[in-house]
């Protein structure tokens, strides 16, 4: 037994079988490595215990962690929710039209009790890490919230193929530390709406990978065909989604296949479909058409049915479509009379044929090879985008889990002692600037430093050469004069090592660090010097960073509703009044200045922080100072000359979000409240900026 997770306690929230199948492959590996797994379930109209019992998993119910002493807390939460919801129902018919009011009421009470239960549960069990399939339902959300409150990392995965509209995924990555999705396509879909991309890592689908192996090893295709006496048949598997298709639409297909003795039609109802509804639907098919069709609901595994079939057919886009493709089956998406519920489209990606039931019946009656109409390259590319890889997903999640736990228990020292004391001839400032292979931008930065750093004392410039420099850069470097030091940096690509190395070569009393392509404006250094005078007790200073079009990039960092750092007042006009206030912030980014001794005290930038190095430094400083150490100085203004994308590596995200999981809490709203700025004002100001930009 691999004992890498010995003595680790891992909590997993499970609900329905389709949730559990994605989680158990990971848990199996973690358990084999010594972890103790605790499955927890919640209260639902549909019992979640049945899943655990049927899957043979030891489980606890969240209600079992609520005692008599908790009654007041439960009641108080229920009253808050009940009165708030009642007001909501009175204000607008929307919520009341969701569900039976009595069901809403039971939901509220159960939620109030679960909310206390999850807290008690985590306090009692003290897990090292939590898992849930996602945090879009109340149980995942509450567990993630409670875990975050206690600083316990939480990983979420992906529920299925995300065929629904983007807005339905709001909050998919909110309280979870990281969200491990199947592929880049999902990552992009989530980012496209509102999710923090830096916390979404594509790892693949944990379930399908295992299914492919199992189906192959068990020779399921042959075994099933033999078992069902369908050896010689061309098997067409129609997979219904939870909403049953209009029966009239499918009749031509049933009829066509009735007349085609070589083809066997197999229909599979979605597991969520009510058994009685499915039965009723089936009974409405005329006997003459239904007698040869094989129907299944939960009796056979969908994957086994896919494996034995020769063609998979969908009535609506669904996860099973992707799974069928991964298993290697050609796919058809039926054109039906019902309006499309989902924007997702297999057809557009050229991995499914779009046919009416009649057209499908006609094609099946001939000898046409349907898979020939679907290019293999398109399928391979599609699977790569949706799944990264069809194997190894569970192992990747285990590795990330290990990395998170290691980060929390041993984040590693950021040890970077600088030469001390400062020599008598040392300049007042050491300005550390990373150099990239963009000569015109580099030149602009240097010119600005040279032009706008007057009346602030002496300074040196340390140019960190991160990559092999081009001839153009070399030419510029050769022409430079003044107190300039070139700091060659050939280590890993991260900016951190370069900045630390720059600091190592510095001699100044105060250090200034630029992020990439940051160019200072008039009096920036003088204003920075004044800030040191005015705020002598502050160890860290940040600046107002804008685009060349005077839009705010950085006016202090806040934490957004998804608990990820963003700039306050981003994209607004650089003169937006609230962005011109000097004040402390939990974090600063893009630019940082501090006394040499403080940099040394904190050990420099952390080697794993990467793109987050400035914010990480601030958070570490907060811990040392026991207050918000970073101070935002709007008078220190710099322009980021281009807004090129800065790649964030998986390890940088794991380091930053695991380490600071407990402290990153939404603060954007409260800042705006403090500044008395309404959402409407912000929206309006952003719209004005956007219009101005268009008018340029």
């Amino acid at each position, binding site marked *: 037994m691999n004992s890498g997770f010995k003595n680790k306690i891992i909590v997993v929230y499970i609900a329905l079988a389709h949730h559990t199948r994605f989680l158990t492959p990971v848990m199996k590996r973690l358990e084999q490595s010594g972890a103790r797994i605790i499955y927890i379930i919640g209260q639902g109209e549909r019992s979640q215990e049945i899943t655990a019992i049927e899957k043979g998993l030891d489980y606890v119910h969240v209600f079992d962690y609520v005692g008599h002493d908790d009654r007041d807390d439960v009641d108080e939460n229920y009253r808050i929710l009940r009165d708030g919801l009642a007001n909501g129902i009175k204000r607008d018919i929307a919520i009341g039209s969701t569900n039976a*009011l009595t069901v809403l009421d039971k939901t509220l009470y159960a939620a109030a009790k679960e909310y206390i239960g999850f807290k008690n549960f985590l306090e009692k069990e003290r897990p090292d890490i939590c898992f849930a399939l996602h945090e879009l339902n109340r149980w995942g959300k509450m567990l993630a919230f409670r875990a975050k409150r206690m600083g316990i990392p939480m990983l979420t995965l992906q529920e299925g193929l995300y065929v629904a509209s983007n807005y339905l995924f709001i909050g998919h990555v909110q309280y979870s530390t990281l969200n491990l999705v199947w592929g880049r396509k999902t990552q992009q879909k989530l980012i496209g709406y509102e999710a923090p991309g830096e916390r979404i890592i594509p790892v693949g689908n944990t379930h399908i990978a295992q299914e492919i192996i199992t189906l192959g090893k068990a020779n399921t295709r042959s075994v099933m065909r033999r078992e069902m006496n369908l050896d010689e048949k061309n098997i067409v598997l129609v997979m219904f989604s939870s909403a049953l298709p209009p029966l009239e639409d499918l009749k031509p297909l049933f009829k066509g296949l009735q007349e085609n003795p070589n083809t066997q039609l197999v229909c599979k109802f979605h597991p969520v479909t009510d058994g009685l509804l499915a039965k009723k639907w089936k009974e409405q098919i005329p006997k003459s058409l239904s007698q040869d069709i094989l129907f299944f609901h939960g009796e056979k595994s969908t994957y086994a049915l896919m494996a034995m079939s020769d063609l998979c057919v969908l009535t609506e886009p669904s996860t099973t479509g992707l799974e069928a493709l991964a298993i290697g089956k050609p796919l058809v998406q039926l054109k039906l009379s019902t309006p499309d519920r989902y924007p997702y489209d297999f057809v557009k990606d050229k991995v499914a044929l779009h046919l009416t039931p009649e057209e499908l019946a006609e094609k099946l009656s001939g000898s046409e090879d349907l898979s020939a109409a679907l290019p293999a390259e398109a399928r391979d590319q599609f699977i790569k985008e949706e799944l990264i890889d069809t194997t190894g997903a569970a192992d990747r999640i285990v590795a990330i889990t290990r990395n998170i736990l290691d980060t929390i228990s041993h984040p590693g020292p950021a040890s970077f002692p600088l030469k001390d004391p400062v020599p008598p001839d040392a300049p007042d400032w050491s300005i550390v600037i990373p150099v990239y292979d963009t000569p015109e931008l580099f030149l602009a930065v240097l010119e600005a430093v040279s032009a706008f750093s007057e009346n602030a004392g002496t300074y040196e410039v340390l140019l960190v050469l991160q990559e092999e420099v081009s001839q153009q850069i070399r030419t510029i470097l050769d022409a430079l004069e003044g107190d300039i030091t070139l700091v060659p940096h050939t280590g890993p690509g991260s900016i951190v090592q370069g900045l630390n190395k720059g600091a190592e070569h510095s001699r100044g009393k105060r250090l200034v660090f630029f992020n990439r392509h940051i160019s200072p404006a008039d009096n920036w250094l003088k204003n920075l010097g004044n800030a040191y005078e005015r705020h002598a007790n502050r160890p860290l200073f940040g600046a107002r960073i804008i685009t060349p079009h005077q839009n705010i990039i950085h006016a202090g960092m806040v934490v957004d509703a998804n608990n990820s750092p963003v700039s306050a007042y981003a994209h607004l006009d650089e003169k937006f009044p609230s962005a011109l206030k000097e004040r402390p912030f939990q974090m600063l980014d893009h630019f940082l200045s501090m006394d040499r001794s403080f940099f040394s005290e904190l050990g420099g930038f952390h080697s794993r922080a990467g793109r987050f190095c400035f914010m990480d430094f601030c958070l570490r400083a907060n811990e040392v100072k026991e207050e918000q150490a970073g101070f935002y100085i709007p008078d220190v203004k710099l322009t980021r000359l281009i807004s090129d994308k800065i790649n964030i590596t998986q390890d940088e995200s794991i380091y930053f979000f695991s380490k600071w999981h407990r402290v990153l809490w939404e603060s954007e709203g409260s800042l705006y409240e403090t500044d008395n700025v309404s959402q409407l004002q912000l929206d309006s100001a952003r719209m004005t900026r956007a219009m101005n930009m268009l008018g340029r």
Partner: protein
Amino acid sequence: MQTTSAGQNRKPTIYWILQKNHVSPFIVDFLNFFRTAAPNVNLRFLIPSLWEETIELAKDLTPESFDVRTLPENTQEWYDRKRESIKGLKFKEGLSAWRTFVLDDFHGGNVNLLAPELPNDPTLQCMLMQIPVPLGSYANEEGVFHACMQWARARKVPVIGYELLPFDTKWTLIPSLLDGVITTNERSYDWLTSNAVGLKNKVWLLPRYESHFFSSAATYFWRNALGLPYNTQYKEGIPNHITVLHIPHNVAMSHEYKTLIKALGKRGSQLHLMISIGKDQVRGTHTHQETVDLLSRQDLAQFHSYSFCDLNKPANLACADAVVACSSCHLSDIATLNSIPTVIFDPDVSKGRYGHTTTVNTREELDVMISRVIKSHGKITKLGDVFSQVLDFTMNRAKKQETGNEFRL
């Protein structure tokens, strides 16, 4: 009374929505009686058209039927509206409610819009409906309830709900949505008005002789007594705030009953005694009534009022808040079987409580029990008085609206 443009007086209208699970011969009789007893109100009974059998069963009420249309929709706009309507709502410690519920429990952008096709009566002042409960109501009844509530709310018509299935549960969302709640038992009343639930100002408790018609387990005892309590109160001049005790007097226990009446006299100003006597219970030259009069005249003078009734007419028990006897007897048995609290004041038997009957041995214990009965009576409001209060509010609303004040019940 409202005045139409033609200058005619028109009665205020109340819609009473009846549902399948409430309509029985007993409630039909009660509502028919009630309608007759409330001539100043135009009571219109409405039943969803999907329940044809119920409409037939309630035909004595001349009910009107109405359709409820349903329209399912699924759009981002509905999702946004749900989110907006509870945007600021948070659990303690800050977890946002919309982020917790809207997508999954509240079904994202899915809605099932319900539209009842109810008559638009300009004199409509109030709507009355049974309140669905989490354990026991069916989807159809809930749908009708919700549709009608929305309909009324859109027209600023107050909605009063009443208890058919028990309310004393932890789920109190629906009562909290309404403008007023009529309960049919003290447990529910106490629960809803408790600090834990906090609906104090809009809950009424019906007297037993009305509330039993709202139960699916109503008995013939109450049907036989229909109307009797109102007549007795009127005839005997018993004001609403006076508690009525039924004393099943027995000539063989004259001294015990004299002692009992004396003991009850301590709270006499809050009590009306209904003393049941037998017309054939003549002892010597004294009738039963003369025996009581002679023995307890001075003590009876301490009561707000008292009256005599025939002990062979158990329906009289329906008028009482409680029965107080010196021994278990035929009437105390009938009382307790029909959930009328019964106090046996008998120092010679063991004290204790069994169902609705409590046996006490001392005057102090008796006084504690009577004070409880008085307290319970203080919670009661007759249905007619509920209507009066509601109509008083709605009529004032018209005046308040003229001055720009919004109506709140």
